[in-house]
Structures are given as C-alpha cells and as structure tokens.
C-alpha cells in the first residue's frame, strides 16, 4: 500500500514538473510494449528483461501487450508514443519484413534502437522416423519431386524456408500454420514432412527424441543442441533465424538511450536473465545501439531480396 501511495505521489509530482529533462531520467514507471500476446516467447523475453532491468533503473517496467498483424500493431503503436523514454517497444524481426510487404506503416527509421537482446537460429526438424537424416536428403527429395515435400510453416510467408529455397533453387509445399505450437504437432502426426522453428520452440521434442534435427541454420553449432551440424557444415550456405531487441520512438534523447542501454547491458548480464534464457534454449546476443541499427539495416536488405 505504502509503495502504491509513494509511486502515486511520484507520478503526481512528475505531472507538475512537466517537461522534465533527461538528467533525472528515469523518474517514473516505464512501459514496455510487447507486440505479441501474453504467454508467447516474445512476451516471456520482454517480461524477463523488464524484470531484470528495473533494478538498474530504479523504476518499475510494466509490460503492455499490444497484439495484432503479426507484430505490426504493437510496433507501430510503440513508434508513435511520446519520445521521452517512458515507452519502449520490443522490436522483432517483423520490423525488417512487414514494411517491405506493405503490411506495416512504420519501419526501423521510426525507432531509435537500443539493444539487440536475443538471436536464435532456425532448426530444420523432421519426425523421428523420417527418411531424411541430413539437409541434403531433404534437398535431394525436393529436387526430385518439386513442390511435393510438405513444409509446416510457422508463418506466411516463411523467411527461413524462402532463404533455403532461394539458395538451393528448390520448391517445397509450404502449408501455413499458426506458430510453432501448431507446426510441431503437424510434423509429429506425420501430416507434414518438415518444419523450421527456433531451438527453444522445440526443445521438449528434441530432448525426448520425438523430433529429429537435421541441421541448424546458424554460423556455428549452438550449445543447446551441440550434436546437430549447421547447414554450412553440410555444404549449404544458408544462415537464418529470428531476433528480438528493444527500441524507443525515434526522437528519444540520446542521453536517455544511453541510460537505458547501460541498464539493459546490466540486465542481460544478470544470473536471473541468463538462467531464464538458458532454460528456454534461447541465445542472448547483445548488440549495442549502433551495431543493432546496422544489423537491422542489413537484415532488411537480406529479407528484401526474398520478398521481391
């Protein structure tokens, strides 16, 4: 009760001291917009980093889910908020793809990107009793029978698959499911032949052996599934995956971005956050504001060649 009263007093004081400078930032609660629903992977990462970062900022960070349009609604909403550092947004790979497809009015330039938090490669998964044991088995089948291999896609369009199709000049029959939780049962039940999801999305089935990983689409092998070779090792030069970071509206003062960046660095280094990510088989990938901005630019170009 006491803390509620206190925070109300603080909030009240803030309203009086209108136009507070960056010097006393942060002086009130911060809001983090998550563009996907409560209970999903993006939501979990957002809530956990918010929980870890609040100790370093000395202010609470409350998560607000704003869903719709595959992330477009929440990210556009976040981009249009007041640029005072009190509304942040979890920015996902969709910011690089959706604007180019005409499905989102705002893009990376509407944000000042703060930190990349998480980068996960896609893993190629088939049923445990599938005849495919390597990525080349799959490619050979797709070449022999174009458009016949059934691919359970986690989204439409699916950039993991498009990257592979383009590189190998093959065509699979992509059936769009609604996320990994639908695509995985479609492979488990032998309704489709193959899917691509992130390691965290399939960690249960990988550990129990219900699904077989025939390649991971990262530069190097990843620690959670050390026995799974990369596609590059198998002679297929395709690297793809998904990522999540944090951004603020584009006019946010640089001093504020710096304070936040430092807090998120500290948050990513906490045991609590590291343990959470490790248990969910997700990889922490910290890029600072400039690196992250460059990274998104390059990814936008890379996705552009697939979309067109």
């Amino acid at each position: 009760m006491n803390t509620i009263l206190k925070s109300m007093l603080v909030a009240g004081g803030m309203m009086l001291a209108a136009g507070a400078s960056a010097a006393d930032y942060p002086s009130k609660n911060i809001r983090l917009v998550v563009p996907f629903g409560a209970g999903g992977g993006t939501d979990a990462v957002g809530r956990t980093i918010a929980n870890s970062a609040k100790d370093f900022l000395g202010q609470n960070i409350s998560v607000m889910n704003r869903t719709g349009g595959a992330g477009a609604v929440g990210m556009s909403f976040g981009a249009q908020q007041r640029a005072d550092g009190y509304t942040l947004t979890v920015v996902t790979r969709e910011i690089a793809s959706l604007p180019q497809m005409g499905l989102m009015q705002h893009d990376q330039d509407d944000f000042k990107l703060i930190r990349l938090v998480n980068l996960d490669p896609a893993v190629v998964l088939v049923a445990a009793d599938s005849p495919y044991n390597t990525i080349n088995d799959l490619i050979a089948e797709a070449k022999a029978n174009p458009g016949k291999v059934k691919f359970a896609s986690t989204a439409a369009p699916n950039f993991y698959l498009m990257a592979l199709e383009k590189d190998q000049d093959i065509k699979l029959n992509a059936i769009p499911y609604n996320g990994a939780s639908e695509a995985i049962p479609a492979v488990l039940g032998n309704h489709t032949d193959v899917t691509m999801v992130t390691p965290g999305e399939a960690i249960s089935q990988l550990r129990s052996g219900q699904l077989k990983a025939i390649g991971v689409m990262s530069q190097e092998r990843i620690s959670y599934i050390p026995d799974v070779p990369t596609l590059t090792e198998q002679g297929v030069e395709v690297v793809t995956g998904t990522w999540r970071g944090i951004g603020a509206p584009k006019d946010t003062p640089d001093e504020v971005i710096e304070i936040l960046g430092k807090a998120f660095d500290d948050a990513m280094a906490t045991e609590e956050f590291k343990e959470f990510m490790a248990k969910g088989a997700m990889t922490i990938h910290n890029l600072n504001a400039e690196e992250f901005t460059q990274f998104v630019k390059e990814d936008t170009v890379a996705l552009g060649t697939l979309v067109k």
Partner: protein
Amino acid sequence: MLEHLLSGLAVAFSPAVLPILIFGVLGGIILGALPGLTATMGVAILLPFTFGMEATPALVMLIGVYIGGIYGGSIAAILLKTPGTPASAASVLDGHTMAVRGQAARALSISAVASFVGGLISTIILIAIAPMLATFALRFNAPEYFALALFGLTIIASVSSKNILKGLLAGTIGLLVSTVGLDPISSVPRFTFGNMDLYSGFNVIPVLIGLFALSEALSQLEKLVGNKHTPPPKFDHKLLSKQDLKDMLPTAIKSGLMGTTIGSVPGAGADISAFVCYNEAKRVAEDPDEFGKGSVRGLAAAEAGNNGVTGGSLVPLLTLGVPGDAVAAVLLGALIVQGLTPGPLLFAQNPEVVYGVFSSMLVANVIMLGIGIFGIRFFCRIIEVPKIIMIPIIIFLSVVGAFAINNSMFDVGIAICFGLLGFVLNKIEVPSSPILLAIILGPMAETNLRKALLMYEGSWSFLYDRPIALAFICLAVFSVYSTLKINRRKAQ
C-alpha cells in the same frame, strides 16, 4: 501410479500448497467472472512471480487460476446475462432464463455441480489415459479441424430454435465479420480499409462484451428510462433438487468426456466445447423444445463441456510438449523456466511434478465446487442490487474489460459498436450466440479448408478418405437433419 498420486495428494493438502491453490481458484473465478479479464491473462501475469517458487506450488497456483477462470465466467452469464468468457456464452441460454424465473440459486448450483463433474472426469481421464488420448489428438490436422468447425457451425441452427431464419441471419453476420483482417494463408488484407488495428480481424473478447454485456445493459437502461414498471427481482435460495441432479448427471458425464476430447486437440478449446456439448445434449433430448427455456440438461451440458476441457488441454502439453491452448502455452513456459522438459520425459524424470499437478487438479475442482456452492448466497445478492446502480457498473466493467484485453481504445470502440448491434438485434429477436459462434468457427473453417487443399494439392479427397473428418461431416449433416425434423414436428 497410485503411490505417486497419493504422495501428490499429500503435497496438494500440505500447508504450503493448499492456500496457494485456494488463492488460485478464487482469483481465477473472479477474473473469469469479469468481462475482458481471462484466465490466460491471469496466468501470464502471475508467471513471473512463479520464477522464484518451487515447481509444484508454481504450477498448482497457475492451474488453480485456470480451473477457476473457466468456471467463473458462468456466474456472470447466469446472473447478469454477461458471460465473462466466450466459453460461458452457451450458459446464458438456459442459465439466465432460470435466473430470470427466480431460480438463480438453482442455476448456480447446477452450474457448480456440472462444472465439477466435467472437471473431475477430465482430470481422471488425463491421469488414466493421457498418452493414448495424445496419439488420437495427433491424428487431427487441417481436414479434421475443418470438419469439426463445419459441424460446429451447424449448431447455429440448434441454438436459434425459435426462428432458424433469424439464427442463420445472425450466423451470416458473424461469418462476414470474421473475414475482416489479413487472410490466413496469403496475408492479403480484407476489409481493413488500411487500418492496421483491423489486420488481425476483430478480437472475439470485445465482440463478446459488446454483444452480450453492453447490449444487455442498453436493454435494461431502455426499460429504466421508459419507466416501465418492472417487478422487484424475486429469487429463492433453493438449490438444485434431487430430481435435477438425476436429470443432469448423465448429460454432465457425457459432456465432460466430450470436453476432454475436444480439449486434447490443440486449437479447439472451451468455447467450442460448450456449444458442441449443448448441441449434443439437445439432439438426444426427449424434450428439445425445453432447451433455451431453462433446461437443466442444457445448462449442465454447457457447464460440464467447458470445464471438461481443463484436463484435456493438458494432454498434449504433458505428453507431447505441445500447448493445446493459450493457457497451456503459459504453463509450458512455467515448466521450462523450472528447468523441466514437458513431454514424455516429464513422466520419467519428474513424476512428483506430474502427479503433484494431477492431484492439485482434483483438489482444485473440489475447491471450485465448494466456493461455487457456498458462494451462491453471496452471488445472488448481485440480483438485488438496484438496476440504476448495476447498469453503470456493467458498462464500466465492459469498457475496462474491452480495453484491458489489448490495451486498446480501438477495442473499446468495437465493443460499443457490437453493443449497439446486439441491442438492435435483440429488438428484432435475432439471437446473439450464432454471431459469436460464427466469429469463433468461421476463421477455423476457412483456414483449415485452405490448408487441407494445399496439403492435398487441390484435391477434395480429404473430405472422405480421412475417417475422423468424415465422421464430423456426417455429424454435421445429421445435426442439420435432426434440427429440421424437430422444427417440422413443432410446425405440425
């Protein structure tokens, strides 16, 4: 197994866990009863608080919220005609009719007992044959989901028994509304008018709040303003009779079994189950005309049907590591954060957690029954609240609820629009439930039909060469036929 179960029960009744479980169930009931606040939301918000807890109490609390949340929606549905969740919309049909007649206590007790029976059966099946059920559920894919949705849509005829034509009109409105948004296969915007808030279509919760809660508030308001003398609400404290119990038990047990099966299939949840069970109870009833006019069986079927899902939806989670619905997805996260691997390994590596969960589900259902029955005296007070106070409260809660689901004023606007639509439709006696059914089932039918066609490379053979799909299509045909027959009998 029995040994694990007994030690699990010992954990569920331990002083460290039982209060958490009671807190979870009670919290869930309150969340469920309020429009716009769902069990999924409660579970997701509580999740970070469980990071520091041990695995069993953490899961027990979340499961308590889940079970309480599904039941809580019905209290508001029965007393105020404002279902707290889509899953309790079917309970309005008979439950609210009973309450209007002054039998609120009877309706609430039937609802509590039926929910308990459904939940208990579901849990027992989960404990006994989860792996078998999971194998069955895996056979479901696009063709089966399409056939299930098609069958579900035929229920429109059965929930609009007064006038099938008006029911179909409402269903068509719902189907039209459900086409708004990015199309599910190729992401082409449909009827969005460039407004990004419409890209994912209409969220079902604001639509529910508008169609049921707000439109009801408007109707009440109109009566109040028109100064039509309404007699003071009468109600007695009579709970369900022995005869009621005898009437409802077979229906409740059957609905619990059906609910478990529907729940075990990923992607089909409590809302669909409640309507399917209602439809089935009506189909086999000797007195189908009573349905919608305060039928004990109708209410029991809907209530046992939605709570029957609770155990079923944990089947794919615990046996395959795949979440069956949004709540199960949060539970999956909770398990993973605890360092556990959901799926077949969980039974081998952490039986104490699995059986802890099973036992607390059994106990949670008992707690739910207890709160449901002992709370009736208290819940009924709501009816005594003068309309002039109650109407603003309902409107306030509706607006807050519509906003809370996605922190969006746009959703509040949607709720208001559907409130007006519902109000107008009420006047011309067009039922609201078919709109809701069509909004839930329309996208399911469309998406899965198109997925199935992709899967079969344009061939329609999945309609007859997949036994489960064929069975649902036959059920759909039969459902339409039997409704027509009932109507013809009525006409004569």
